[in-house]
């Protein structure tokens, strides 16, 4: 499974991890493992978030004040650190998403441009 799975996955585009994490947290508070599972599930197993990127990102977002954290019992009745998106984080998400949209549109425009007469 691992091998074929890897081939289907794509690397995260630089700078999009924050946006994905914040988006995931909009659906509700979540712990680190939950976030990584959620991203994988909602991308149909295509996007794999490396823990080596996820945890530093979460701590960075916490320091920036875009998420807050709280220790709570998980569904399996275990203590886990749950992250919650803050108002500031929501604003940041909107921002990131808008920028992302513009970027996709720009890149798409370049890629799909018809060959022009020189």
């Amino acid at each position: 499974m691992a091998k074929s799975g890897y081939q289907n996955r794509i690397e995260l585009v630089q700078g999009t991890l924050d946006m994905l994490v914040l988006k995931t947290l909009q659906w509700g508070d979540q712990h680190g493992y939950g976030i990584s599972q959620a991203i994988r599930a909602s991308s149909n197993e295509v996007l794999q978030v490396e823990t080596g990127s996820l945890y530093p990102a979460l701590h960075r977002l916490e320091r920036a004040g875009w998420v807050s954290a709280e220790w709570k019992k998980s569904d399996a009745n275990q203590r886990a650190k749950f992250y919650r998106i803050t108002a500031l984080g929501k604003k940041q998400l909107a921002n990131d998403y808008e920028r992302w949209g513009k970027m996709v549109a720009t890149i798409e425009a370049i890629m799909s441009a018809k060959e022009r007469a020189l």
Partner: protein
Amino acid sequence: MSLFDGRKRELRDEIEGHLRMATADRVAAGATPEDARREAMREFGNVPLVADVTRERWGWGWLESLVQDVRFALRQLWKTPGFTVTAILTLALGIGANTAIFTLVHEVLLKNLPVANPKTLVRLGDHEDCCYLNEVSSSRADSYSIFPYETYKNLRDHTEEFEQLAATQGGLADLTARRASGDAASHSSFGRFVSGNYFATFEVKSYAGRTLTPADDADGAEPVAMLSYRAWQRDYAGDPSVVGSSFYVNTHPVTIVGITPPGFYGDRMTDTPPDLYLPISEEPTLGFYGVRNSPDVGWLFLIGRVKPGVAQEALQEKVSVLLRQSLAQLKGFQTVRGQKLLAKAHVVLTPGGGGIASMQHNTASSLYLLLGLAGLVLLIACANIANLVLARGLARRSEVSIRMALGAARARVMRQMIVESVVLACLGGMAGVMLAYAGTKLLMEVMFTHGSEMPVSALPSLPVLGFAFAVSVLTGLIFGVAPAWMGSREQPANAMRGTNRSTRDKPSLLQRSLVVLQAALSVVLLIGAGLLGKSLDRMQHQNLGLVTNNRVIVDVSPSKAGYKPERLEGLYQQIEDKFHALPGVEHAGLTLYTPLSGSNWNWYVYVQGQPAPMPGKEVTTSFDRASPEYFKAIGQRLIRGRTFTSADTATSPRVAVVNEAFVKKLFKPGEDPIGQHFGANDIKNAGDFEIVGVVEDTRYQSARDLPDPMYFSPMLQQSPSRSTKDLDASLYAGQIVLQMKATTPGLEAQVRKTLASVDPNLSVDHYQMFTEQIEANLTGERMIAHLTLLFGLLALVLAAVGLYGVTAYGVQRQKQEIGIRMALGSTRGGVVGMVLRGAMLQTLAGLIVGIPVAGLCVRYIKSFQSQLYEVANMDASVIAAVVGTLVVAACLAGLVPARRAASVDPARALRAE
């Protein structure tokens, strides 16, 4: 304990939670618990690395690892106390010396007066020539800095740009103060005449009573004065009833109206701050010269507080115009020559926050020279410690190798080593700051005559601590970077292989270069010390034209004792007679001032029959007075003609004795000066004095400069052109000279008794041997020479220790090689020779580098400081002495390890693997 223990545990829990959940999900999907755990771990990746990277996001990672490094460094240093103590002591000396000198630089050169808003103070003038200058004849480069009272009033009353413009006496008034009631003895005090708005200008409030006001400075005002806090504590133990009480100052009644605040030391940094502040209106009564009403004598420095937004250039121009207006009133500026001079007269405005900056200007070059010397010593100390650290680093090679083999990054290993060096330097710096406290006090004692009176605190202030810290860190970097770089180049596999019999273990090129550098720097310091010592010696033992032994100088002040000029003749006669009667006195003379006493009178002179000199080409000569026995008493030989006799009285024909320089300057070669006439101050007076004798040249003004042209008058003869209503202060004898037949014990008490028997009001202001007076002129030179020698010797010891260390280290490392050599037939002498040769080579290299560098340094020092008196740039005897000293030191440093090398037992050395 770490800074983030709680947060770290939390992070560990968070990661552990992640792994548990991942495992649980896999178990739920059907995997065995072991497989699930392994798979979860594999997916997660390198747990410590993730934790590390995450922690970095907290933003304090650098601090945490720094704390780690510092703690590790302290542990390492603790493990090797011998090394640590040696290094800290060396550093403490180096950093301490620098900090002590910086304390003085900061306190003396960089600090402002302790008054409100020192930045808005402006000084009128750019030099501190003092203390009574003729405005016509003694302007320096036409830039005026010292002003008559009339000029001050004109400037003060016509410059609305100043909130206040204050005047302060250039010199000090030598006073005797006694409280009218309750003061048994009178106190010898220094006073300073200041304008009524002086304290208002500096915005200084009184500590008790009130400050002086412009009303006190008005003509006919009640005579008042302010007492300094220091004098109040010293002489009256802070007695509050002093305020408002009456005093006798030089026998005149004066009321003390207030006490100055404790921190206030007047308008300048000095080792003789005034005890009394008196309004200028009292100067005609209490001042020695009574110059307030002389419009041609400059004796006041001016300092003002400018209003905000005033343009300096415009103000400077306006002040210069006002100055020229004032000067134009003087007769001396009304001649053709005077007009030319007047056109060039101007005032330069300078920042006044530091007050009158004579102390700053006098000491700056010495202090910066000392700072440079101390810097050199510190550099040598750095080289020494770098070598120690290198040797230590090699001993720790296996530790470094293991750490690198375990995956420590090279940069991290290097950083750790540098941190260790900086920690060491900071420890040395702390010890250095303590040393600096004692060092500053010592320096002040040697640099200034009354060092303890200086308003300077030896306690380290914040800037001084900052300086010490910066120097420490810099020092640590200097001696730490090279060894750290060397150490971190280690190939992990190399050292872990264990001992190997290679020649690679000899002291590295870097180590040897450091020793060469040390030797070179100590050569520079020693050559400097040698040259300065030689220059001092030249100054002390040069032909001053005098035999100084068994001669006593007694300072007196007839004017303070209330004598009027008409009573002086009798007084002088009595003094001469009574001192002659003392047993053991060969000659007793009176004079205005003796050689190198610090006093000087200057006049322009004009020789009868010679054309008037071009403006600016006038001959300035020094002027002094001599009693009949003066020249014999002081030991100045007569060359031609005669000296004065008791027949040269106030009313007899006016005569003069001149020195050789005077003859050389004013007469053609071969021309006979005897019988010629000359006069002072104006060409009209050219017929005043007839030259009756020529005496040899003697240094009166400065120990280092050639004697000025000089002329002497009898004690009581005055120029006929002098208006009689002015007091001629030069009539008052300043010093008595006694030439003794032999060293006389208890002479001082006899002298005091004798003077008191002449007149009880006549006190001995100062009593000293002539040699002491001359040596007092050279305190600065002596201090610099001695400190340089001290630094030089310190550097030599450090260099020798460094050479010893490197040689001993080499012997230790080469034991096996030496063993093999001896086994193969090398003699003990051969081994000693081999080791010594190595040491000598480094010393030679040091000499080859050091001597030319010293030459450059000497040339540089000569360019800004006249410290080197009559000494060539490179003195062969000094260089020979330095080379000899260094070679001897190197022999000693090399011999000990060489003998140890020779005592290596070949069999044992070969066995020891």
